[in-house]
């Protein structure tokens, strides 16, 4: 393999499909130039959400795609990060030191909780584990909504981020007016790129390859000397820490947190949908999945509205096409994806190439010379 900067940057793990590569690069470039290309609060908000959820989805892919663990409490780690930043900034005032410490504390709490959960619950069957983690996620949501003294309860809490990235500030640089929001956006963007590349590196490290071995065949992996149980716990911890980072960043963008947007199992379902639609176990796939999903979420309801306006009013059909029912169509889309593109967008795009390779590979077998 050739050795150059770009290959090293992506840990020699190329998208393995031209279309997929173009999609991911296109997304990265679009997100980079959003403040210039599509000025406006809404497009910036959509882009920040995409970035934040890319961190969450990519970290979830370490577990779901690479290790074969189904957890339904990934959103809890995201929420811990978000609330850690929110509560600290609200209590101790806006400051970079506070923000750094709060993010670190959020990540540590998430890692601790993930370790605790996995140490004693990963021994149980896959489906039991999924159910158990769902119960953990739900009870964390309820706990947070009831600890209203710290967290503002169901209504959530607002806080003021450090001045430089607060939405209300503007700077004058070389005659250009730059808002604090734009700066905050670029902070999130930069960290998203770093996390994406770091996770790509992680899954291509000896550790990451061992995780794949555990997913494919646990019995064998253990027989090769891979400490399967410990590696699973470590994978959970790393993934939880990254999710907490994503939570901190998005809460900075929103300057507001509440249980329904940062801890609810409904968001967990969204994360799963993003990873699966994009194609799990590829790291590139979830990036595409998040983008498709967030854009669909923002614009599907509008599309439905214009559709139902343009056709004559039929009672039941009107209810089906009601803009509030966009999730119905999303659910259908999801199930159809599972049936017809079970490996997601990335898997489907790569699959075509692999089929060609498999045809090439079906040469007669060589015989042993010894």
């Amino acid at each position, binding site marked *: *393999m050739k050795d150059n900067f770009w290959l090293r940057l992506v*840990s*020699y793990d190329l998208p393995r499909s031209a279309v997929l590569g173009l999609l991911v690069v296109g997304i990265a470039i679009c997100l980079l130039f959003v403040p210039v290309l599509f000025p406006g609060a809404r497009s910036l908000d959509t882009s920040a959400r995409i970035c934040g959820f890319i961190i969450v989805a990519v970290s979830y892919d370490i577990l779901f795609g690479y290790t074969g663990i189904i957890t339904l409490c990934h959103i809890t780690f995201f929420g811990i990060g978000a609330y850690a930043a929110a509560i600290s900034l609200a209590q101790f005032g806006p400051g970079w030191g506070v923000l750094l410490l709060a993010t670190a504390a959020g990540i540590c709490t998430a890692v601790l909780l993930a370790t605790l959960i996995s140490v004693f619950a990963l021994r149980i069957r896959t489906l039991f584990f999924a159910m158990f983690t769902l119960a953990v996620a739900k009870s964390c949501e309820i706990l947070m909504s009831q600890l209203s003294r710290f967290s503002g309860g169901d209504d959530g809490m607002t806080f003021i981020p450090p001045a430089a990235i607060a939405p209300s500030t503007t700077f004058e640089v070389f005659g250009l007016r730059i808002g604090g929001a734009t700066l905050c956006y670029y902070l999130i963007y930069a960290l998203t790129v770093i996390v994406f590349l770091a996770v790509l*590196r*992680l899954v*291509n*490290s*000896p*550790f*990451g*390859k*061992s995780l*794949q*071995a555990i*997913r*494919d*065949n646990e*019995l*064998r*992996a*253990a*027989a*090769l*000397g*891979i*400490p*399967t*149980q410990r590696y699973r716990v*470590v994978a959970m911890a*790393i993934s939880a820490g990254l999710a907490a980072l994503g939570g901190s960043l998005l809460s900075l963008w929103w300057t507001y947190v509440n249980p329904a947007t940062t801890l609810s199992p409904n968001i967990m379902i969204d994360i799963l949908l993003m990873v699966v639609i994009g194609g799990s*176990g590829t790291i590139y796939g979830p990036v595409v999945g998040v983008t498709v999903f967030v854009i669909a979420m923002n614009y599907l309801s509008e599309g439905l509205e214009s559709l139902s306006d343009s056709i004559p009013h039929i009672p039941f059909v009107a209810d089906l096409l009601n803009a509030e029912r966009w999730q119905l169509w999303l659910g259908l889309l999801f199930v159809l994806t599972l049936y017809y593109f079970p490996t997601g967008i990335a898997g489907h795009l790569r699959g075509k190439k692999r089929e060609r*390779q*498999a045809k090439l*590979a*079906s040469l007669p*077998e*060589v*015989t*042993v*010379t*010894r």
Partner: protein
Amino acid sequence: MIETVDLSISFGGHLAVDHVTCAFHNDALTAIVGPNGAGKTTYFNLLSGQLRPSSGKVVLAGHDVTRAGPAKRSKLGIARGFQLANLFPTLTLLENVRLAVQAHVRPHDDFTSLACRDTLVIDKARACLNTVGLLPRAEDFPTVLSHGGQRRLEFALLLAMERPIWLLDEPTAGMAAEEVPIILNLIRSIRADGARTILLVEHKMDVLRSLADRVVVLHNGRLVADGTPGEVMRADIVQEAYLGVGGKAAGRQQWA
């Protein structure tokens, strides 16, 4: 060297392995035989750590490993082959073998280096693939290999682990007839270098006669005979144990 002392395991009251005491020393190939359900695979699982015994102990290279898991025992010297040759289907052949090399060449957790650029590991992995004749297909996935091909890949993995003790569970079962000699030659070649303790579960008598230095017979979970192939074949108890399933054993031979 590996040894079991008074080793038993019961499943719901049924003793699948019944107080087996037996030691396996270096540089010998021991065949473990017995009718279906005699407890051979269960015994292997107890040796390599997939199962924990109800009583008794397992001693591996001087350590009591009765409570240790498979990963620990692998580190202490066991390379285990399974009846089903399914490996890691979403990794290429080279990546499969690399995992086995990596497990002992790079024993420490490594989260940041690049597995695909580790030339030491890759060279060793390629050498192992070459030994079993699969090097030209290094970039394929195991799912496109024939059953025999997958067996050879498993063999490459075991070679790559560089362990002194090999446990092979019916390495030629379900294999096309023309592929069997390839595997047998591979077993001969690793036996020939004389440094390994090899345990082999096998049904085919001709294979036993030509390969085994020693034969251990299990019947209903109990060790009923132990000796050279010639001695064991003549022993009354073995005749008896095999007569019960004589037709089946003969059938197996024909079918293979």
